[in-house]
């Protein structure tokens, strides 16, 4: 007889249903698995055999043929152990069909028969629910993570024996999470802007950046506070919506970064990869494609500190995923896509030793080193970053603290961000975009008309301040965001003037 057990396979973040068909025949004993099963699944044979025996069941003395249907798609993951074990026991008569037909199973088996947690449990459960499975048996270690999925009943299983017991009618309560997970509002875990003394101009630029989704580049001496400023960005980003939270959690699930202690992503992610990171770790990849830092920062911030120290090749590969807001990882036979909708923040010193132009420290770089460092700062990635700010060290710091005048708080910055975001949502409701930074050339002309004074100011800026012609559209987009924060219907000269302030590095490539 043939048993059919429900489970699913993952491709990127999407899951597709898989039926594990098991048949026992009168041939020399052995297990064969068909259906484009990966190496991990082929290894399951050993685990399943031993786990079945360890659970006190008799492994059938027949040839076991397992097919993972549909046979034309690739199957991947260690979670096929449990459904295959159930399938074998079902086929050898341990259970009747009506006992297991309504369930779906995922889990990796240990050699002693216990069930281990797997990566990607969340998207697997979501996928199974979407095709109509109402009851799912899954590892205890993944239950918390999957508990956020609505409209499905979960059974947390410790071991194969317990799962069979449940199917054969033993008492069992569905899994319910005891914790109320709050997500959305920033919890300020990385700090709040009230902690930052001075740097009001930088805070202003950051507010603009978050409001319009513009990327941000900070240049400053070591110790000027760039990292502090960057870390606090999530505290002013808008609330995480349910869909965003789910998507971000799915990515972490597939990356294997969730646990019962931290089963979901409740805050916008803030990722700071070190500059020695490899392309695969940053963008995603590996033999079995796993999400990279750029996807782990999805719906959050990707902070590249010491930007010029990153390998040029790695930076080059960032271009497409920044543009498309997703990253395609191609393999010989198939393609996997992970999302990458991030806010990009980069920071750099003025030179390798950090002190070029500082009148209190000697710069120890040779002219060749200076040129090399500078050349890394230009390029296609920085071209996509609309805002550039220079962060001077805050002098007279002690004076400021004594003064008692509070710096701008995260709460007030977020208020401005939310106001501006609302205006953008309403304006672009039919355009399929939601932020000023996403405007293409045609949309720019349509939504950002400029009066003669603005145009004149822009022309003068390009001439006198050494702005590049490409900076033109960036300045207009930023001006539009500044106008939104100001709640002005159209762009005025003061918005353009301020927006031009944020192109202060352009002149470095031309003259200095």
């Amino acid at each position, binding site marked *: 007889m043939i048993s059919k057990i429900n489970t699913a396979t993952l491709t990127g973040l999407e899951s597709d249903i898989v039926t594990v068909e098991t048949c026992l025949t*009168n041939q*020399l*004993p052995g297990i064969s698995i068909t259906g484009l099963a990966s190496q991990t699944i082929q290894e399951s044979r050993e685990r399943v*055999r031993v786990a079945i025996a360890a659970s006190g069941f008799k492994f059938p*003395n027949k040839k076991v043929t397992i097919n993972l249907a549909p046979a034309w798609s690739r199957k991947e993951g260690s979670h096929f152990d449990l459904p295959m074990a159930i399938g074998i026991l079902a086929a050898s008569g341990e259970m009747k069909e009506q006992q297991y037909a309504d369930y779906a199973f995922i889990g990796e088996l240990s050699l002693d028969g216990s069930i281990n947690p797997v990566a990607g449990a969340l998207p697997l459960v979501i996928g199974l629910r979407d095709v109509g499975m109402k009851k799912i048996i899954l590892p205890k270690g993944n239950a918390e993570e999957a508990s956020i999925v609505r409209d499905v009943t979960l059974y947390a299983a410790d071991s194969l024996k317990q799962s069979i017991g449940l199917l054969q009618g033993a008492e069992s309560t569905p899994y319910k999470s005891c914790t109320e997970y709050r997500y959305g509002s920033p919890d300020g875990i990385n700090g709040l802007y009230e902690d930052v003394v001075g740097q009001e101009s930088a805070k202003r630029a950051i507010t603009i950046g978050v409001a319009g989704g513009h990327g941000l580049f900070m240049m400053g001496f070591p110790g000027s506070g760039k990292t502090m400023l960057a870390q606090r960005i999530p505290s002013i980003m808008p609330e995480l919506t349910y869909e965003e939270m789910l998507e971000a959690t799915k990515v972490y699930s597939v990356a294997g970064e969730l646990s019962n202690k931290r089963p979901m992503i409740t805050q916008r992610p803030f990722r700071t990869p070190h500059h020695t990171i490899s392309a695969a770790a940053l963008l995603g990849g590996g033999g079995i494609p796993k999400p990279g830092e750029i996807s782990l920062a999805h719906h959050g911030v990707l902070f590249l500190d010491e930007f010029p120290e990153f390998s040029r090749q790695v930076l080059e590969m960032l271009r497409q995923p920044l543009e498309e807001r997703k990253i395609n990882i191609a393999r010989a036979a198939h393609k996997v896509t992970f999302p990458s909708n991030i806010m990009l923040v980069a920071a750099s010193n003025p030179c390798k030793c950090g002190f070029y132009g500082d009148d209190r420290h000697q710069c120890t770089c040779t002219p060749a080193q200076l040129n090399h460092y500078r050349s890394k700062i230009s390029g296609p990635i920085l071209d996509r970053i609309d805002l550039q700010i220079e962060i001077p060290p805050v002098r007279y710091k002690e004076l400021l603290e004594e003064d008692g005048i509070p710096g701008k708080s995260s709460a007030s910055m977020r208020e401005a961000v939310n106001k501006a975001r609302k205006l953008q949502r309403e304006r672009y409701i039919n355009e399929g975009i939601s932020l000023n930074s996403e405007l293409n050339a045609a949309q720019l002309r349509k939504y950002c008309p400029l009066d003669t004074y603005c145009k004149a100011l822009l022309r003068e800026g390009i001439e006198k301040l050494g702005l590049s012609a490409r900076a033109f559209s960036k300045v207009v987009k930023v001006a539009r965001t500044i106008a939104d924060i100001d709640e002005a219907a159209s762009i005025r000269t003061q918005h353009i003037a301020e927006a031009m302030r944020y192109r202060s590095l352009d002149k470095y490539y031309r003259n200095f």
Partner: protein
Amino acid sequence: MNEKQKLGSYGERIAVAFLMGKGYRIIKLNYRCRAGEIDVIALKDEFLVFCEVKTRRGSSCGRPAAAVTRDKLLHIEKASKHFMAYSNWSKYQPRVDVIEIIMGAEPAINHIISVTE
């Protein structure tokens, strides 16, 4: 018949005696066909057992069971299919066993059941 063959057939006789003692019905000895050959074919309960017998003088040359290589196993499997095709044994569940005999004052017999996983 040389020494090796003599030893082989002596071992086979010990194996047969051992199996019969365990309630196996001996169906065929030294089954040969183009695909390969099988030392002993026996029947017990629902199993049709194809048995390879390996004999050694002492275990100094390694365990005899280790001499059953993948290739040998493949031949046994092919031969077993051949046997089952041309006979009426298909309703039985086939199985491949190895019987290991280490000669000595008291021959040591090791019956390894179902080696094909």
